């Protein structure tokens, strides 16, 4: 069913990785690009190419949302309805899209032109509402940002008229960093014309740092990063240099994996680096790979960041042409291959062990720790997984030194940090701030205050997963330790501002729906508990809640928090727990108002089904598997 060219493309992809199986997601993309979706026959064929059981391929394809298991319209439009976009009015645009196309979510227009779906965070929180548009039979998709109904019309007309997606995306640049240019390092070049090109990068002194690092002993590089105290920006804040030091001696090969699976709602900082200053990341990769002596660096970019992937691939080609990547970089005898690996729509792959499972060509399930990746990671070899921003900081630390870095921030959270600010503020965007700066300064000074100067109801300080804090924490410093003191965590630095007038219940419900959608399904508490919580929240929203539900949620979220396999479980309920804690009265009032008699829901009875007789006949499946009752 696949063309010869697709087959040979897949074989080339297989050869690109140390182990062929890693090319399974890329191969599925190739098949989907050619056919428009993934019929069973295509998966069967891919299984044969990879020497796998078809069930394995099917299981993998089913895990990742960007693979179509059924045909889609010519264009597939997905609108983000997650909390940050919701706060920016994506609900209206979603309604408008449905009305304009005359279809609901999950449907395709009668003419087969458009399929519409709602979508989880696209990393466009400051420029929402946003639609991710793909042409089903192509590898290309792009964002349409800052959408208004008028722009939706333009978008739809343009797509139909051109019968194609515009190839070059000119994304909105959602940042306002001119307040304190003296702290702009990571963002310093973002506004320059052609900031992503190697020529402009070289003109700014680019790749000199990498050259310098290669002249140092690897241990020295690690020592410098350790001394600077660069903390991981993916969420946990673990010191990068210390992590690198965990690599066992004498075990090779080693791998660097850059986590660019930025999917935490409210976080969109890495996207800026990937799209507008990819060379600073590459330079950071070179420094880091040298430090840990890795000859392969993988950048795992979330699937929706297609534009970022293109920019990274171009940057790698440019750097390769200059001899900065590939065999014997900078004339040394050090080889370094950088491979851009596209995710395919699975938030959990931001968790480092799940990312490694995915990169190895499996479903993105997290793995047991220990062993930690630094000891046994990719292909069970020592592997350092760091966030895009972390690696980018490495480049600047190597240029300016550890003392330079430590001049900013606090003792335990030294340096600068990218904050993704979204929600109901005047100027949402990415800000490069020194650790320790207060929320008040960020929101009122950098971002010009809240929309319509409304009072703040609540702040999510570190991406959607983090517990909410109240405005009384406005003078708390934005650093790992201070936020913990305020009852939350800095996480990935995604600050979402919620103003008075917003109801907390739809926000909590929408957040829970996200985790239910993204749960990998491996462990019981997250898989079963998450969807239970969502069902309760939906019922409360629908006016059928009871006060007992609040107790149940408090109790069950405790199990999810404390008993899940990986950090996703706790992250999925911290927000809910914080709203129950901080806004308990709001829940109560709403429940008492909508269901004053405390009427409990009727427990639905299982539809009657008939067990088959056990005889073998062809239609057994149809016969025995009665369709479930559709609620």
């Amino acid at each position, binding site marked *: 069913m696949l063309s010869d060219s697709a087959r040979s493309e897949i074989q080339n992809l297989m050869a690109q990785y140390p182990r062929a199986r890693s090319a399974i997601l890329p191969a599925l993309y190739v098949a989907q690009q050619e056919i428009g979706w993934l019929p069973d026959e295509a998966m069967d064929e891919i299984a044969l190419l990879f020497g796998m059981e*078809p*069930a394995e391929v099917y*299981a993998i394809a089913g895990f990742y949302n960007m693979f179509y298991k059924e045909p889609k319209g010519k264009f597939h439009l997905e609108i983000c309805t997650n909390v940050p976009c919701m706060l920016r009015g994506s609900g209206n645009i979603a309604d408008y899209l449905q009305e304009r196309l005359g279809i609901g979510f999950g449907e395709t227009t009668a003419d087969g032109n458009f399929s519409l779906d709602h979508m989880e965070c696209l990393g466009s929180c400051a420029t929402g509402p946003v639609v991710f548009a793909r042409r089903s039979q192509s590898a290309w998709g792009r964002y349409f940002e800052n959408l208004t109904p008028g722009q939706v019309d333009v978008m739809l007309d343009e797509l139909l008229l051109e019968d194609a997606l515009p190839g070059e995306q000119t994304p909105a640049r959602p940042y306002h960093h001119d307040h304190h240019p003296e702290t702009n390092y990571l963002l310093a070049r973002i506004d320059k014309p052609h900031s992503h090109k190697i020529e402009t990068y070289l003109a700014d002194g680019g790749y000199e740092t990498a050259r310098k690092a290669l002249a140092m002993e690897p241990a020295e590089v690690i020592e410098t990063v350790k001394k600077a105290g660069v903390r991981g920006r993916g969420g946990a804040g673990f010191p990068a240099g210390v992590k690198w030091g965990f690599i066992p001696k004498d075990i090779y090969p080693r791998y660097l994996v850059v986590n660019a699976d930025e999917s935490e709602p409210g976080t969109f900082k890495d996207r800026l680096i990937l799209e507008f200053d990819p060379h600073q990341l590459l330079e950071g990769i070179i420094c880091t790979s040298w430090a840990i002596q890795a000859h392969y660096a993988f950048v795992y970019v979330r699937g929706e960041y297609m534009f970022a992937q293109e920019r990274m691939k171009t940057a790698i080609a440019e750097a390769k042409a200059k001899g900065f990547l590939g065999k014997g970089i900078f004339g040394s005898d050090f080889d370094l291959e950088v491979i851009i690996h596209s995710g395919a729509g699975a938030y959990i792959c931001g968790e480092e062990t799940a990312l490694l499972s995915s990169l190895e060509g499996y479903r993105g399930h997290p793995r047991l720790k220990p062993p930690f990746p630094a000891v046994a990671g990719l292909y069970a070899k020592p592997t350092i997984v760091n966030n895009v921003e972390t690696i980018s900081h490495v480049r600047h630390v190597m240029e300016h030194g550890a003392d330079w870095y430590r001049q900013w921030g606090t003792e335990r959270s030294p340096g600068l940090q990218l904050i993704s600010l979204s929600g109901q503020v005047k100027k949402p965007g990415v800000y490069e701030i020194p650790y320790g700066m207060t929320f008040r300064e960020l929101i009122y000074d950098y971002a010009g205050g809240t929309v319509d100067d409304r009072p703040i109801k609540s702040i999510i300080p570190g991406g959607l997963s983090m517990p909410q804090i109240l405005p009384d924490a406005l003078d708390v410093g934005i650093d790992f330790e201070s936020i913990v003191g305020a009852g939350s965590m800095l996480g990935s630095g995604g600050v979402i501002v919620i103003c008075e007038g917003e109801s907390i219940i739809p926000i909590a419900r929408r957040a829970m729906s996200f985790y239910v959608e993204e749960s990998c399904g491996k462990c*019981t508490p997250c898989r079963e508990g998450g969807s239970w919580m969502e069902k309760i929240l939906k019922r409360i929203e629908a006016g059928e809640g009871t006060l007992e539900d609040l107790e149940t949620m408090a109790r069950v979220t405790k*199990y999810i928090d404390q008993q899940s396999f990986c950090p996703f479980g706790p992250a999925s309920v911290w927000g809910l727990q914080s709203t129950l804690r901080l806004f308990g009265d709001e829940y109560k009032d709403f429940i008492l108002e909508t269901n004053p008699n405390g009427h409990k829901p009727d427990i*639905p009875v299982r539809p009657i089904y008939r067990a088959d007789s056990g005889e073998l006949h062809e239609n057994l499946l149809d016969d025995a*598997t009665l369709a479930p009752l559709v609620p």
Partner: protein
Amino acid sequence: MSDWITITIDGQEIKAKNGELLTAAAARAGIDIPVFCSHPKLDPLGACRMCLVEQEGPRGKALVTACTTPVRDGAIFHYESEKAIDARQGTMELILINHPLDCPICDKGGECPLQNQALEHGTGKSHFWEEKRHKAKGYPLSDLVMLDQERCILCWRCIRYLQEWEDKPQLGLFHRGGETVVDKFPEGELDAYTSGSIIDICPVGALTNRLSRFSYRPWDIDRTPSICTHCAQGCNLIIDSRNNEVRRHVSRENMAVNDEWICDKGRFATGITKHPDRLQEPLARIDGKLQPVSWQEALQRVVTGLKTIVQRDGPDAVGALGSAKLSNEANYLLGKFMRGMVGTNNIDFREGAALLADPRGVPALADVREADLIVLMGSDPSEEMPVLANLIKRAAKRNGARLIIIHPRRIELAKYADVFLNPTPAEEVALFDALTRATMQARMEAGDEEIPDWLRETEEVESASVEALALAARLTMQAKNPFIVYGADYAWGFGARDIVGALTNWLITAGCEERLGFLHNQANAQGAGDMGILPDYLPGRSPISDRKARSAIETLWQTTLPTQPGLSYGGMIASARGRIKALYIMGSDPVGEKPADADSMKALEFLVVQDVFLTKTAQMADVVLPAASYIESAGTFTNTERRVQRAPQAVRPVGKSVADWAILMHLALRYDPAASAAWKTATISEVFAEIAQVAPMYADMSWENLGEQGQQWDREALPMGKRMHAYSGGSATPTDKRYPYRLVVSSLLWDGGTTFSATSEMAHLASRSARLHPHDAADLGLASGDLVEVLSVAGSIKLPLRVDDSIKPGTVFVPFSLPEAPVGTLFDSQGPRTNVAVLKAAS
């Protein structure tokens, strides 16, 4: 890592092995930590979160999963703490919210870990008011296994079993989050040969036995610990029956034999006790037709028939065929009757004298686990012994065991092989000689040996590169703990003597001939030989010329034994038109296997067949004695590693059928009532006790002390010196232009034989085709599904064709045991190693 350390659980200090999982350490101390995803035979996963306990650490107590936590000295755990109990209750509540709780109609109810643990670790109350998730129910994964996705709690055991033991991940988790289900590829089927194991390890009723479901309740069955007799591995299982009907087979652990797995043939092909065609009563030929008679009359006819001939033509005019499928006791008593009472050594079985098997089988099956090298020659465990095949895969994949495979087909295990050599039939001797030469060359480079003259002249072997030969030579020479076996493909028929000689030469050269063993196919081929069902060996494998052994038996049997070697299986049939006037055939069907033998049977004056079915041979008999199947009678079987195991009676015999050994007892007492002092074994344990007296290697065994894991007789009890074997070549059948293909014959798991066909739900699985390589098929203008005629000098059979690229070009593969196309039809005087032609047949 095996140091003993001390850990504390709930204040109680217990000894544990350093690094073992907490679940295992606790279990030893009698603390049964509940688990679902964890399974002793599978890698830890930590997914279900049922086994949470608190562990004390530097930062206080934390919940950990016992199934993934290795214990270290001084570790402190709390299992019964309030927090740990609450945590487990929480997990249990979450597991149950979407579980259908349809226990009253679930096969697993009564033996269900979820049910048991819900009782022990649940709160008894659900707070879940929402609608449960709906998924597929009663959904067949194959003809054998049913899936209920709603009952499934997603522990992944089934997926992991197929991955870790079968290396066939045919089940996977599909979708994700709450929508996650276990499923198969839509177009695919679960066809791994041990797929049924996932039913046993499923901790809920999600996977059920499609053949047996709804036919029993676990608390209302009689459980008989037994073994499987489909092949010579002798996997341990339990026969569960109710109202004297077999309901199901489940596996039983025996680490020396089958770990805790059985294959799907052993699990599902249980239909023999229920088959409507089972012989219900004795038959005798009256007026030219077989008609029901009483046991008295039937036995009297046998006695009269045999005595008439013995008195007229002498005892050597009578012969008997035993069976590798029947128990030691049945075979032993047949031998005792023929030798001691009739007075002839004309006794053999199909896999007897004609099969060049090492009389000690294989050293030990469990050697595979620790082997650093596995050599398979003319043996295809995937089809012949699937549980062993899984152990081999695991050794290769997990322990880094190297694998050398020499086989006429590219068998499934070939994909794990370091060296796979694919000689055409007739090319084997040259190949083994080349291996011997390569090994000697390697030795010469290191030392002083020289290649003997007879080996110098061997020709080049097409199917082996110099590198492959050198690698095979190096691997065998370096192996410290090899598992080396040859199978029936190389031990039977014309030329086998040279092949076995040549392969033995190679292994002597490599210095590992002591580890060479023979892998039998039939359940009791080893035992039948041990019982002396051979024309020239006595029970206990002493040659009949061994005067001491003979006189010991004569004393016990109170008789005189014939001293001249008797005729072999083939010899007796061939002499049916001459010396042999009467045959007593027990559990064997020569006519079914080779229809041409019907002529011989017809020529006999008197034919007795003792069997469970009215076989092709039985249809020609003068007296047919209905036998009980092994499930309906008791007996012991000796597997291919000489492990003697019990198979007690599980259900009552069908109709008037009687256990084989008991038939022989009655026959003997009727044949010579005066001999009753020597024939007084009235129970199976008494028969076995007599065997222990007669066969020295069974000397220390008794029915009781065989226990439930059996006993292996000492390989050293039968020393076998192996010598280099020189030969002049020319042992292969010459090529013949009229018959351009070499015939390759071996057994497939899904065969067309009686015991398998008896399970009607499975009979359609049998592979009923001849197979050709795609190139050969193309040359002949044939495609899969075409009806073809395979013909040799001896005869022809018609079969549908299957094009299969694992078949070597120039060969045709035909499986054994197809009643509609018995491959024996093609065997000429040289047996299975013959030349054939393939033609498109008119349908």
